[in-house]
């Protein structure tokens, strides 16, 4: 099964203020968008980030072929437990998801 990162144009993750992180999946085409929306369920993302599914905001933006997730950071940006000040590495976990 291919990894999501090989199918899409780009996955990026970034802080949305110190208390949230947001992940944008730029699918690049209607076909890939359809595939990704189906394969990447909110529950799968919740399991990946070890957070409750209810805490995740999901946006399926067909005009842009973008699937977006926003979730409260498990630790506040820059707190002692935070390993990733800008929330940059979360994208890697999404990129590595397998897609049917």
């Amino acid at each position, binding site marked *: 099964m291919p990894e999501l990162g090989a199918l899409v144009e780009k996955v990026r993750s*970034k*802080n*949305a*203020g*110190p*208390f*949230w992180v*947001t992940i*944008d999946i*730029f699918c690049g085409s209607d076909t890939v968008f359809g595939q990704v929306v189906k394969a990447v369920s909110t529950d799968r993302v919740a399991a*990946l*980030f*070890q957070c409750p599914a209810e805490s995740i*905001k999901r*946006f399926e*933006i067909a*005009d*842009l072929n*973008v699937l*977006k997730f*926003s979730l*409260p950071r498990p630790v*506040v*940006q*820059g*707190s*002692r437990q935070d*390993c*990733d*000040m*800008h929330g940059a*590495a*979360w994208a*890697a*976990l999404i990129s*590595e998801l397998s897609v049917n």
Partner: protein
Amino acid sequence: MTRILIPSGALGLGYDPVALERGIAAKPDLIAIDGGSTDSGPSYLGRGVSKYARASTRIEWAGLIEAQAKAGVPLVIGTAGTCGAGTAVDWLVEITREILSEQGRSAKIAVLKSDQPAERLKSALAAGRITPLSPAPSISDEVLDDCTNIVALAGAEQIAAAIEIGAEIIIAGRTTDTAIIAALPLMRGDHAGAAWHGAKIGECGALCATNPQSGVILLDVDTDSFTITPLADGANATPHTVSAHMLYENTDPFILYEPGGHLDVTGARYEALDARRVRVSGSRWVPSARYTVKLEGARVTGYQCMLMTLLRDPHYIANADAWCADIETRCRAKVIDRLGLAADAFEIELRQIGRNATLGALENRSAEPVELGIMGIVTAGSEALADEIGKTLNPYLLHHPLTQQEEQPTFAFPFSPAEISIGPVYEFCLNHVLELDDPMDAFTLEVIHA
């Protein structure tokens, strides 16, 4: 119509000087640039300092002050000095004075400050005028007292007050990224939805276009829409690059909260005027019943000392978990014994760079690395104590054997001294809004002739 020239996403990131000249020739009504954000972490707000080098800031700011003179329109910077705290604003004012004197000119400068004294906020808290956003840490008088800096994010109203003074240069403390751009079109009666939406699209400079690092763009706001024009060679705005910018650093790509209301772009239409320019209409501004400004605060959460050692021996790399756990246990016991500290008075954490130092418990991949960096992080109640514990940890990271049977190993230290004192570490401790009767109630405006 109001034309805003935006040289780049932040002062310190650089801009294309040729494109800036084109922008001046296009006769803008105002030049606006952002000076910071929370994105670099709580230390800058906690200490009230800029993250960018003074020399870089000075050169780029001098270029913009020159552009201001040529264009003959106000130059506005928001969130001066990365964090927008008073000391960072003063720092940029000092740099501005130096530049003006060097350029042999004088200017009227408006200085807007966003600092919030703890006493004001304690009264507001007691009066129920501070409301948590989601998710918010709990706050109390004690938390407010502990903050070394608290700022409120000014909106378009406070920037408008500064513009009304007739200053050539406006140096503002913490503002929303958009306020410095939206203020003038709003003052002139342009479409409010277009003003805020255009400001959001434009606030990162050319990040809303191709050739994103070129910086310079023009924003035209009129009575029903806005138009984005990137000015550098090879920079083109398309409906896709412009609409996609609403995703950037936004929790919700359709809604943006600002002091006094929110922007709703659900009905926005993006239209290519030509290969380079995009016109956007249909954005909506929804005023709120209460006028609130967001608060940001940082306080010291401990003092840290950092050590780094490198493992190249495959035997140690393979057993790094056990090795690190053993060191943590032994070193903790030694600190408690020799320094007489309580077990909860300090922390020692060893992170394995090459294994899971980026994602911690979320990491789901593994591979045997060629080498492994071990980052030792000590946290304690004072700088002296953190450094003392760092020195206690040092011999373990240099020589600790996996078992007592083996010969004493030595690991690679990349630095001398091996203990790197980080000093105070800060945390963001507010995610709240403050209600105001008048937008200027929590802000001060001062005029300087320099």
